């Protein structure tokens, strides 16, 4: 099951996208595509080709929080699991992200173990 999950990784820095993509492949998720901000990501998500969204917060164009709000407001995408992976560490922001409907929140710098733990928690056992 997990091998078939399609991930979209959204981050404005190509190095960070590459790091996340490599970690996902190591964790057994080889289907990973990338976008550099919310504006690029949203139409990709709307094609219905993705099962999981991992997004940064601070990006030019459309920030991650706005992307999550747009995803939650879209009938077809509303239930998509979303993990926020960001350097934003203010308590009020974490609460704001939770209210916007993220399923997990990981702060940078992060470890492979943290990413795995959050993915397992969101996807549930056996995924």
């Amino acid at each position: 099951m997990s091998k078939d999950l399609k991930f979209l990784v959204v981050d404005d820095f190509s190095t960070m996208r590459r790091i996340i993509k490599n970690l996902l492949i190591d964790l057994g998720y080889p289907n990973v595509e990338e976008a550099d901000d919310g504006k690029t990501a949203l139409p990709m998500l709307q094609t219905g080709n993705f099962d999981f969204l991992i997004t940064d917060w601070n990006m030019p164009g459309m920030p991650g929080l706005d992307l999550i709000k747009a995803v939650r407001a879209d009938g077809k995408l509303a239930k998509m699991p979303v993990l926020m992976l960001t350097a934003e560490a203010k308590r009020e922001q974490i609460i704001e992200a939770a209210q916007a409907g993220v399923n997990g929140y990981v702060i940078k710098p992060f470890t492979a173990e943290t990413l795995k733990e959050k993915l397992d928690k969101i996807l549930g056992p056996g995924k």
Partner: protein
Amino acid sequence: MSSFAILKLEYSACVEALAEALRTEDEKAFFAAVDHIVHMREPGMFTELRKLTGDLQKALERFSIESKLADIAENEIPDARARLNHVISMTDEAAHRTLDLVEQSGPLAERTAKTAGNLIDMINAYRAQSTNLQGFEGVARSIDAYVPVARALEAFLPTARADSELIRRNLADVLLAQGYQDLTGQIIRSVMKLVQELEAALTDLSRLSGDVVEHASMGENSSAGHGPAVPGVTKGEIATGQTDVDALLSGLGM
């Protein structure tokens, strides 16, 4: 009483004394009256003169600060922007170079580990098989059974050596790729110096203008994000690590 009425009172006595000196042709009294009038005017004149000198000094100072600011805005800020862009491309390049090397080394290490694992299995199987063999025929069969193990070992060792050698070279290149930190650090320091100069010039200017500088807080639009928290700079309650974030979210029922 209007200020002119006061002046009229003050001066009329002097003017009368002056007229009297002229009429009586009293030279001494004439100069005394003129001196008195001049002395009456002097305090105001000196205050005006002092004010004028002060204004001129301020204008000159302001001019010098403004030309400095103009120079910073015209030359040094675009320079700083170019330098910071260079920092971004250098860090980007170093990160991608490191990622290239790591991505190249991973499969090599994996191949070595996997082939070594297969060889261990082969050797274990050979041992299990050869312990039951006895006699001359047994030795011969044991040797025959060892041939594929020896061949596999022979094939594995040169590859393992080449792969390890490449991984070692890649690690040395990863080490070298970290050299960006020194160069970008120097560039960032030079930009910090410019920011300090700019801050000093702006503070001087606001002092001359007598404006009250209000510290506007930056990035209040939380939807856009604030960027990474900087110790001692970022205000508000900040999560210090993933444990903090997890505790906060579990408090929210997540």
